[in-house]
C-alpha cells in the first residue's frame, strides 16, 4: 500500500492556488495558537497578581505587543514552517519541525537570561520594530510561495 498524502493532494486538485493553500494553513494554525498564547498571558498576569500586594497590569506597550506582535510572529513562524514543508518536500517534515523547535527553544533560553537580568524592556519602539519585521517577513514568505510547485509536493508525498 502506498503512503497516503493526506488531504494536501486533494487540495492541490481544487481551484485554489498554492499561495491560498499556504495562507489557509497559516491561518488555521495561527488562530488557535494565538488563543493559547492569550490564555497563557492571562494566566501569568493572574498568578503574578496572586503573589503581589498591588494590582499588576501590563503596560500599554506590553498590551500592544500581545495584541499585535505575538500573533504576527506566530503567523511568521507557522508561515515559514509551512513554506519550508512545501518547498523541501513533505518527507523532511519531521527533520524541519525538530530543527525549528530546537532553534526556537535555544533563542528563548538566551532571551530569558537577558529578560531576567533586566536586559530587555518592552518599549513602543521595540513593539513597532518587531511588528515591522514580522510584517516584512510575512510579505516575503508570501511572495516566495510563487516558487512552490505541485510536482515537488506531489512526488514527495507519494
Amino acid at each position, binding site marked *: 500500500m*502506498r503512503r*497516503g*498524502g*493526506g*488531504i494536501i*493532494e*486533494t*487540495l*492541490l*486538485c*481544487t*481551484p*485554489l*492556488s*498554492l499561495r491560498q493553500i499556504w495562507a489557509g494553513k497559516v491561518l488555521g494554525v495561527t488562530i488557535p495558537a494565538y488563543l493559547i498564547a492569550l490564555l497563557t498571558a492571562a494566566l501569568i498576569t493572574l498568578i503574578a497578581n496572586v503573589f503581589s500586594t498591588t494590582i499588576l497590569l501590563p503596560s500599554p506597550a506590553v498590551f500592544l505587543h500581545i495584541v499585535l506582535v505575538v500573533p504576527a510572529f506566530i503567523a511568521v513562524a507557522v508561515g515559514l514552517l509551512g513554506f519550508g514543508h512545501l518547498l523541501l518536500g513533505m518527507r523532511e517534515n519531521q527533520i524541519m519541525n525538530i530543527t525549528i523547535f530546537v532553534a526556537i527553544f535555544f533563542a528563548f533560553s538566551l532571551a530569558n537570561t537577558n529578560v531576567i537580568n533586566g536586559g530587555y524592556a518592552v518599549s513602543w519602539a521595540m513593539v513597532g520594530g518587531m511588528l515591522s519585521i514580522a510584517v516584512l517577513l510575512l510579505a516575503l514568505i508570501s511572495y516566495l510561495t510563487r516558487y512552490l*510547485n*505541485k*510536482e515537488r509536493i*506531489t*512526488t514527495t508525498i*507519494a
Partner: protein
Amino acid sequence: MDMNAIEIHDLAKSFNGSPVLDEINFKVRKGEIFGYLGPNGSGKTTTMRIMLGLLKPSSGRALILGEEPDEHNGSIRSRIGVLLENNGLYERLSAYQNLLYYARLYGVPEPDRVEKIERLLEFAGLSDRRNEKTGRFSTGMKRKLGLARAMINDPEILFLDEPTSGLDPESRMLVRDLILRLSEEGGMTVFLNTHDLSEVEKVCSNAAILEGGRIRVCDTIVGLKRSHDTPVLEITLVDTEYAVRTLDILTSQDHACDCERDDRRVTVTLDDESPSTVLAMLVTNGIAAEEVKNVTKSLEAVYLDIVKRRREHE
C-alpha cells in the same frame, strides 16, 4: 463541438532520467466511463497526476476539456472532480461540514449549497449520519462520502483512483452502483484508475491496459475481449476416467496451449485450431463427452494474457 473529454497525445514522463511513461495515447469521449488498467507500478497514477496538473509531462500533451491542465490553470480544476487514494476528508468534521467546506472552496453559490449538500448526502446514503464526525465512519462510508465530495462542483469529468480499493464486497458494489448512476443519470465522464478487472468489466464501456509505462491495448470492453479471443473449450466428460484420457490426448497436441482438469471437467485453451477439430479428435478416440461449451474469455484472462506476452517478449 469537441466530443472528447480527455485527449492524451504522445505523453511521456521520466523521473531522474528513468522513464515511467512512454508514448501514451488515448481519448475519452464525453459521458464515457473509461477504465485505466494496469498492475502496480505501471504508471497509472502518474498518468492521472499529469491529467490533474500535479505533474508536468516530459513530452507530449494532455488535454482536459480541451485545455492543458497547467498547475496555474484553476479554471480546469473547477470543472473536474477528483477522488484519490485518500478521501480528502477532515476526520474531526461531520459529513455535512466536510461537504460545506469543499462547497466553499469550489465557490458553489451560497443559495445552492444546502440543497446540493443534501442531495449528495442522499446520493451517498449518508443523510441520517450527516452530523456524525467522519472519523467514526467505516472505510466504505468514508469512500462514499469522498465520492460525494468529489462531486460537490458538478464536475464534467470525475477522476477516480482505485475507488473500491480496501472495501468489503457490499461497499464495493454500492460504490460501483454510484459510479454507474453518475454516468447514466448525469452524463458525467468518469476516468477510472484501477487494477480491479471485475470493476472495469462491470462499470466501464472502454478501457486501456497499461503495462511497463506503455499502453498495450485500448478498446471497448467487448473489443478487448474479442481481440484476444483464443477459443477456450470446457468439456464435461461422463466420468473421471474419460477426463484423464482427454487430458492426456489434449496435452500431447501442439495446438492445445493450456489444459486443466477438475474432476470430470477439462478446460482447454486452443492456439489456432478450431473447436471442431478437438471434437473430432475426441470422437475418433472414443471419448464420451456429456457437454462441450465454448467459454468466453474474461477481461482478467485478456489482461493476464497481455502481461504474460510482454514478459515473454522481454
